[in-house]
């Protein structure tokens, strides 16, 4: 019975992966009809040791990890607080639920364009003019996307803004599954609101929380669109401070036509993601048992 599934898996996962390994060992140029020449592990050596290529790759990996380290806890916590807020049955709560969910419907490329206007350098940027207005001009214009210090933070903020609503909806569904009797019993035991949250809510939605954290982690590792849009189409994003591994792979393949290096980056990244997944799986399954 499993054969169709296995066939599809082979077709869409195993075949591309084996092809990527083969490409990574050859000099494959996008669109070049000449037969690829064998390069051995040169691409891997460059990614890991060449001063230019490896610096960019390590930077990219680091940015992915920083992104994940900030986005996973912050976005999950924010989504949980939003879910708790919109769980209350007050009139018009549906409007708030829809509003918080709205950014999820926008493609991330569009979100990047909107935030490009908000974060634009100079006095015309919405954020800059707002800050200068409220501080009475004391707060000078910042180059939010161009500065090395704020570029990655800006991307993190807009990504959380876009992604938060989705986690909120999942957590809201989980919150509504927690039996009301448990809260009533806790109230009879004179548990404070905080105690009810820690001892009833959190255990009640734990599997969903774990899922949301895992899911956000996976999204954080493949972050690409907003960085590509902001760097390549005039957003002035500081490329060196925000490049991610996916960005490296895509620009190598489609800007430099270097399929070999792009494949090698993908293969190395695959190994890293597998290691991270195993660690996370261990950590969460221990907690569950």
């Amino acid at each position, binding site marked *: 019975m499993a054969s169709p599934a296995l*066939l599809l898996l082979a077709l869409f996962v195993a075949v591309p992966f084996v092809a990527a390994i083969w490409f990574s060992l050859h000099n494959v140029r996008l*669109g070049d009809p000449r037969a690829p020449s064998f390069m051995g592990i040169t691409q891997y050596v460059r990614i890991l040791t060449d001063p*230019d290529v490896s610096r960019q790759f390590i930077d990219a990996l680091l940015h992915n990890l920083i992104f994940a380290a900030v986005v996973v806890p912050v976005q999950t916590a924010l989504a949980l607080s939003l879910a708790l807020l919109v769980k209350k049955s007050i009139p018009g709560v549906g409007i708030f639920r829809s509003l918080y969910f709205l950014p999820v419907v926008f493609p991330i490329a569009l979100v990047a364009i909107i935030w490009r206007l908000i974060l634009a350098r100079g006095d*015309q940027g919405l954020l800059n003019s707002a800050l200068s207005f409220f501080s009475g001009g004391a707060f000078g214009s910042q*180059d939010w996307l161009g*500065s090395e210090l704020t570029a990655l933070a800006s991307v993190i903020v807009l990504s959380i803004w876009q992604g938060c609503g989705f986690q909120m909806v999942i957590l809201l569904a989980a919150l509504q599954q927690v039996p009301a009797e448990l809260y009533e019993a806790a109230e009879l035991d004179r548990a404070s609101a905080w105690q009810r949250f820690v001892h009833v809510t959190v255990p009640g939605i734990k599997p969903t929380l774990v899922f949301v954290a895992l899911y956000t982690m996976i999204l954080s590792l493949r972050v690409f669109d907003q960085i590509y849009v902001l760097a390549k189409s005039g957003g*002035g994003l*500081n*490329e*060196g401070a925000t490049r991610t591994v996916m960005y490296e792979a895509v620009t190598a393949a489609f800007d430099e036509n270097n399929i070999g290096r792009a494949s090698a980056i993908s293969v190395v990244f695959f190994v890293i993601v597998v290691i991270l997944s195993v660690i996370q799986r261990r950590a969460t399954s221990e907690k569950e048992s």
Partner: protein
Amino acid sequence: MLAPQRSRPLAVTIGAGLSLALMLSACSGSPEGGDSADGTIDVWAHSGQASEAAALETLVKEFNSSQDDVTAKLTLIPEADYTSTIQATSPDELPDVMEMDAPTMAAFAYDRKLIPLEDVVSSETLDNRISGVKESGTYNDATYAVGLFDVGLGLWGNKTLLAEAGIEAPTTADEAWTVEEFRTNLAKLAEVSPSGKAIDLGEANGFAAEWGTFTTTPNIWSAGGTLMKDGKADGVLNSQENVDALEEWASWKEFADPNTSGSAFPDGQTALTWTGNWMYPTFSEALGDDLALMPLPDFGNGTKAGHGSWQWGVTPAAEGNTEAAGSFLDFLLTDESIAAMVEANAAVPGSTTALEQSELYGPGKPLELFATNLESACSSDDVSADCIAVARPVTPGYPTVTSSFGSALLAIWGGADVQGELDSAARAIDSDFSDNNGYQDE
């Protein structure tokens, strides 16, 4: 018992059938390419400036109604993805005729996505081209592309604001501001510009994209540097001249308007803008007689400007029916078609006869400067003080050159160390060239 036994082979059949269907549909993606026997040719073009795309659509319609043998089917692809779309399409799935940006021509010819045009396009059409268009269509001594127009890059000024700051606009290349004068003028003009910024340098177009290479290379050529020499970037791209020129360029950032509205200059918010001929219709409508066209600043080796623009080629998909493709290109390159196109984008007409009849180019006409710039054109390998218009390097390795240089530009604009960025770009380019055996094309 019967049902499960039967369902297994059924599931296998469905699964196998599905995968087979998927594989087949994946393999026969585009059936259109190459089926030109019925007199239909497929044409791909970029969709950038709206007026330019509209003019092209009209031309294609006119071509189709002008004769009965050939029907051209036009597909417009957004400019941002245009080059990578062609790069990622295999030669047999390409259209019969396609447009391409000038510096990408060599890479497509190297990838066997273009065929020589000597026997496709009529010799009258080829001989009538202006020298700039001839040069950007030539690779390995063969013509692979023909263009309706060539491009001009210049400094545009708002005469009212210039007068307010007490600055006179230079009109000819000899009078170009030196880089010191330019810097002083930027400071003066910042004071009179309503936005507080003197110039729009085009950063909203993205310096990491092709625009970055096109718009900053005149600075390095004018400083006596260039991108590559003899297929090598190290010692050339990261030369002292280039470092000085780009440090200067990055220092203009404090006077540069990010132009988030997209219309800072035509709205009169900035006194200057640094862009090409395609903005002339917008600018002249907004500013009228207030619009001044000036040469780019002189870094010491004379003012320079970029050249080489969108042009047309024929792919191997048209082989066996190159006559149809040739008749379409011959039609596009008639003086009437060229006139219709340059009315939309104000580019320099690409044929000598169309240039003579032009209302914008010629002695005393508004864009005279762009045409005179092109009269003294040279290649990026050999930039002399006398030449003004310089073509970007004609090499199949150009995608890596512009990608590495563009990344460096974006970082430099953001404040990174110029020497370090150019060193690393030069190493990336040289490593790519040596991986590909210097892009020797046999």
